[in-house]
């Protein structure tokens, strides 16, 4: 078994490898040398435009979105003390989806679709928070129930809108609902908001990391060991929701990344959140980047929704790690 720093180093290599892979494959295959030349500024015009206009922006958004989703999933799992929690479990993506497909139904531009999604996510967060808080205590099962019920409500509204929508906007809506990165464009490369939000999220998670280790043993035990539960719970909820809202705004609701990556990393690196948080960022980013590269190349020139691929890649990988993890536990 490798030590956590070594695993983290391998994950950095994996991230770089995924990036090179994403930049090189496509309708115009590029060699590693081509990519290096272009990034240095010496490439041909066509290479430059393929990399800077198409592949790099998309890779950039894919990596950051994947990283945010798996970090949010990790935080949500500790908040609810439920290994089955994912970033969408409390309805954040449902609210975003309703607003986004409404925007698509009205034929709004893609930037406005993203804005609508973000507002929808915020409304959903406020709703769940207000209702779960109520007058009584704020325990995980109440939060979970409120979130799940609200998510179900959003689901019904989504189906309602879908059933009334004309055929020509239906495909766009479905792609959005399954998670799609084809909206990424070159201006996003200059936008430093996304990476700074990701880094802030990671730093905040690291600040809370040891408290999260204690919190995963239950709120009562965490209190006994000196953790002030209420502020920690609130920060966890807000941070996980904000990360999810931003990720959903970028790429729609991409499934599996936020559920599977934190799990895989717990099996691979440890349950110590000081290692787990950076590992989730690197692995989640790589998984989504690789999946998106496959999504746009497997049946090119047609594109698949990336959410389909994350499930295809994630499920067998996860099952493999799970069976291996159990074997190790039994033998140790």
């Amino acid at each position, binding site marked *: 078994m490798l030590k956590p720093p070594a695993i983290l180093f391998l994950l950095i290599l994996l991230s770089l490898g995924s990036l090179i892979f994403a930049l090189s494959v496509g309708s115009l295959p590029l060699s590693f040398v081509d990519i290096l030349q272009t990034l240095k500024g010496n490439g041909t015009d066509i290479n430059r435009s393929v990399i800077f206009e198409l592949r790099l922006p998309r890779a950039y958004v894919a990596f950051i979105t994947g990283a945010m989703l798996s970090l949010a999933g990790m935080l949500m799992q500790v908040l609810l003390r439920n290994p089955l929690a994912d970033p969408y479990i409390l309805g954040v993506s449902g609210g975003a989806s309703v607003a986004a497909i409404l925007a698509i139904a009205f034929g709004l531009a893609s930037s406005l679709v993203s804005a609508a999604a973000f507002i929808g996510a915020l409304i959903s967060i406020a709703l769940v928070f207000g209702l779960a808080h109520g007058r009584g205590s704020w325990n995980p099962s109440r939060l979970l129930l409120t979130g799940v019920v609200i998510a179900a409500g959003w689901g019904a509204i989504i189906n309602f809108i879908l059933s009334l929508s004309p055929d020509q906007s239906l495909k766009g809506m479905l792609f959005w609902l399954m998670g799609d990165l084809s909206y990424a464009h070159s201006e996003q490369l200059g936008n430093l908001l996304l990476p700074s939000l990701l880094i802030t999220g990671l730093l905040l998670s690291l600040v809370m990391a040891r408290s999260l280790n204690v919190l995963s*043993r239950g709120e009562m035990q965490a209190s006994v060991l000196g953790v002030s539960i209420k502020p920690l719970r609130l920060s966890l909820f807000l941070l996980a929701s904000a990360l999810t809202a931003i990720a959903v705004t970028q790429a729609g609701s991409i499934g599996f990344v936020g559920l599977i990556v934190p799990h895989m990393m717990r099996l691979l690196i440890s349950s110590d959140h000081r290692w787990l948080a950076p590992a989730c960022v690197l692995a989640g980013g790589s998984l989504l980047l690789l999946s998106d590269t496959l999504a746009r190349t497997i049946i090119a020139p047609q594109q698949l929704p990336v959410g389909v691929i994350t499930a295809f890649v994630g499920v067998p990988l996860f099952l493999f790690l799970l069976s291996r993890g159990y074997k190790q536990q039994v033998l140790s």
Partner: protein
Amino acid sequence: MSLLSTSHLNIQIGNTKVCNDLNLECNSSEIWGILGRNGKGKTTLLHSLARLREVESGDIFIHEKNILTLTRKQIAQQLGVLLQHHEDNFPCSVMETVISGRHPHIGHWQWESKNDYALAHNALESVQLSHLSERPVNLLSGGERQRVSIATLITQNPDIMLLDEPNSHLDLKYQIQVLETLCNQTKAQQKIILMTLHDLNLAARFCDKLILLLGDGEVLLGDTDELLDEDNLQQLYDYPIKRINSGDYPAFIAK
């Protein structure tokens, strides 16, 4: 010196009055037992003393400071609790669990030092679990899991230990050995223990003082020798109990 005291403490849970105007004074090197029937509030009393729940009225003092003026972390540096239930939601090794006891003593950005790990190793040794330190906690037996929690508490190293049924899941040998270890350490380091117990024989053997929760807010405080007579026990458990004086400690059997 009084490590833990209460003044005019009122505790109620639901419709059950646990104690009424309780004035408790626990001094260093004392082992206290809390006895009572199911649902009379033993655990509630422990949780209240650790400020894990609000009390109806009255004050609690740790090292003569009102507990309401202390932060959660300051409380955790001086007072530890062995809870009745242990949650293991995610995969985690025995050592990772035991080292979490150092949490209140380590700064925000600090990692556990060699000294912290040495404390954890010693704690594991004192509950005879050194050989399992890398084992995932979810593969332990009930008794082993209970000893891991006790080791976590020893690693936390508080002046005041509140134990909620410390002997649950433990076999006869460990019931005696673990309590002996905890009580000897406590006496040697002039700390205190308060523990809820259902076993009168253990109470008679280890506790200097007792708190009997009779119900309806009625509480008897006093020395173990004086309180454990057949009349009090009949009243406490609503069942006749025979006291047999034999050997070093009295023995109790239900009639």
